[in-house]
């Protein structure tokens, strides 16, 4: 049971009972556009074209969903910060501050766009584009339910990771291109962090992949009769930590560490460029949390409720946990962070792989 079926039904209903009759009526009314309408009706009855329309509609829906998601997440996160800090958070813009993020957006749209005189203009402009584009790219292979997925890739997991790990490249060229010492430091830290956390991130997933026997996220979710969080606690821990570092969220927001590097690699970005970077961070947060849900918490599997609702429930629990973590820990130093990555998480993930090989080979799980 999922909402995707409903959406699909709605779409076919719209095409069959509204679009086709209207086009046919138009063709009858105006004889000179008759060939065009005939062609359109033929297209709409063609399965291949319909598939294309469906994928396009899906992508559109997911885009809208992500936009809404970020808006609600930002509001929610701010409200939660407020509660953690014994205050109220946004209150006065819209009901309970719900429109706060719109106000921020409007303001950022209207800001002057500064490119520093001595910056490398191309790289400086490219950075927000790369960071945001890769974040959106990861969404392509990220399913929400049996139906809601734009591309059903066999190597979906690898695709997500590939897209996910491109962003620090953007960070690096942006930080270098801004011609500022703080951005350069931030960019170097970003690069170091990327290299050292990519490895444990991928290794920790290998256990899941071995259990499921597939790189396809849909398959992984389908084969989770028991949550992999229970079978792979080490993997979950390593993955969660490494993912937090990968998406540069506090406490691992070392590339943009506010108290020492001003705003890290984002220091020189003004106006819309800063806004885009900002949005990208939250999309990446979505991707990270969604991966945790999909790989370790059974994805959209659950009784009674539609799949999408289950997915959202689990996703928000993970997000709340991430916000909680953000508020609880100070920021480690870069060398300590790298030590943690190479000397703790990497061995742990390797141990996890060995254990999983043992379990799989012994055939306990059938």
């Amino acid at each position: 049971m999922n909402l995707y079926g409903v959406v699909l039904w709605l779409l076919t209903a719209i095409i069959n009972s509204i679009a086709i009759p209207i086009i046919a009526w138009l063709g009858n009314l105006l004889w000179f556009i008759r060939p065009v309408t005939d062609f359109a009706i033929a297209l709409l009855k063609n399965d291949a074209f319909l598939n294309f329309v469906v994928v396009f509609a899906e992508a559109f829906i997911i885009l809208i969903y992500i936009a809404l998601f970020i808006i609600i997440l930002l509001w929610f996160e701010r409200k939660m910060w407020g509660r953690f800090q014994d205050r109220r958070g946004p209150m006065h813009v819209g009901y309970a501050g719900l429109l706060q993020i719109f106000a921020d957006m409007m303001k950022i749209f209207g800001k002057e766009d500064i490119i520093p005189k001595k910056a490398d203009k191309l790289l400086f402009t490219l950075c927000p584009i790369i960071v945001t584009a890769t974040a959106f790219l990861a969404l392509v292979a990220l399913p929400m339910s049996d139906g809601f997925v734009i591309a059903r890739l066999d190597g979906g997991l690898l695709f997500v990771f590939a897209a996910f790990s491109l962003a620090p490249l953007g960070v690096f060229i942006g930080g270098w291109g801004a011609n500022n010492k703080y951005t350069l430091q931030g960019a170097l830290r970003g690069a170091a962090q990327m290299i050292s956390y990519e490895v444990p991130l991928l290794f920790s997933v290998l256990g899941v992949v071995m259990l499921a026997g597939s790189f396809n996220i849909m398959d992984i979710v389908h084969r989770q009769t028991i949550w992999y969080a229970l079978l792979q606690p080490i993997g979950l821990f390593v993955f969660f930590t490494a993912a937090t570092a990968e998406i540069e969220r506090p406490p691992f927001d070392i590339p943009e560490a506010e108290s020492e590097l001003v705003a890290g690699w984002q220091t020189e970005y003004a106006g819309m460029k800063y806004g885009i970077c900002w949005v990208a961070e939250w999309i990446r947060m979505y991707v990270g949390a969604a991966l945790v849900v999909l790989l370790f918490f059974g994805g959209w599997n659950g009784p009674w409720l539609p799949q999408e609702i289950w997915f959202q429930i689990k996703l928000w629990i993970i997000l709340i946990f991430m916000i909680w973590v953000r508020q609880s820990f100070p920021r480690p130093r870069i060398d300590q962070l790298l030590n943690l990555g190479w000397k703790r998480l990497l061995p742990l993930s390797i141990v996890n792989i060995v254990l999983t090989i043992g379990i799989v080979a012994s055939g306990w799980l059938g």
Partner: protein
Amino acid sequence: MAEMWINMGPQHPATHGLWDLRIKVDGDMILDADPQIGYIHRGIEKLGENRNYTQFIPLADRTGYASPMTWAILYVLTVEELMDIKVPPRATYIRTIAFELQRMASHLLFVYGMAENVGAMWPPLVYAYRERELLLDLFQILTGARFHFNYPRIGGVKWDIPQTFEAQTKKALDVIESKLKEYERMFDESEIFLMRTKGVAVLRKEDAIRMGVTGPTLRACGVKEDLRKSEPYMCYSDFDFGIPTGKNGDLYDRWVVRIAEIRESAKIVRQALDRIPGGAVATKVPAAVVKSVTVLDGETGYEDLCVIMAKVPKVIKPPPGEAYVRVEDSRGESAMYIISDGTERPYRIKIRSPIFCTLSALKYMMRGARVADVPPIMEGIDILLSEVDR
């Protein structure tokens, strides 16, 4: 990566006030540090030479904004030593209470700064401010201002403590002491905080003494030195309190010492509130020449005003001489050196700021540190640029 100089400041999120710490880095390692100060140099010492003795009290408040009360008290203590005035015991007790409350407020500010500079620990940051507000409310009851109180007077204090003050203070102290446990849970049990602070910015005892470091930073190195004990001023000899010291002289010890000092201060305030004697809160300042007090004829209430506003004449002329008085501020030994030439204005006021000396020891603390350590190190000495620049 090649070596390069980074300017941390004058505008930088980690600075309290304005200054420019130029650090030479090789990648992430700090090779050299060259602090540039003076960005908020107001010339208080020169201004003091152009104000009369009473007018300088507000300026003394503004010397160090995290602990204005201690600076104002230090100033009046110096002038009193210059003029050899005996202050009534009740006034001394009130001063001591205010002094220690100020120390607590200042150390809570340190908690805030530590949370911010170790890395965006927002909740304790806001909590520290929340608790500091309790103390500011107390000051508001006592003096009428949140800070920059203009409360101590030469020869006493401005007015007596209000009736509700004692009960409210005790309540606030209870709250703060219970919250201190919360802070300790939040910080001391956080593995990352320990990682960030233990063994960082170690200052050896000998270096600290050689560079003139004082206060909690010195005590964290293991030197049991506190002016409240070793040269008791006001009425500190009446109270029973401990001097917390550290062992290693690292960042964590500075944190522990300061948290312990908040507890000790609370202890002192409680004792002082219990034992506070009665009597006047201000004495008549002797041998002063009242030059030009404008009294409007028939203006009612002027006499009352004179009683309330401690009995200080408008113009004070201390005898020629000099005085150097030191107190244990929340940041260390702060001192004032006032030379009088017998006129109504000080001939010279020299302010010894504790952070000024601690800052010059920075290069010993920065040795082997990383860029990310700079904000916690700065906060570890409880930096306050307003005091340094004067």
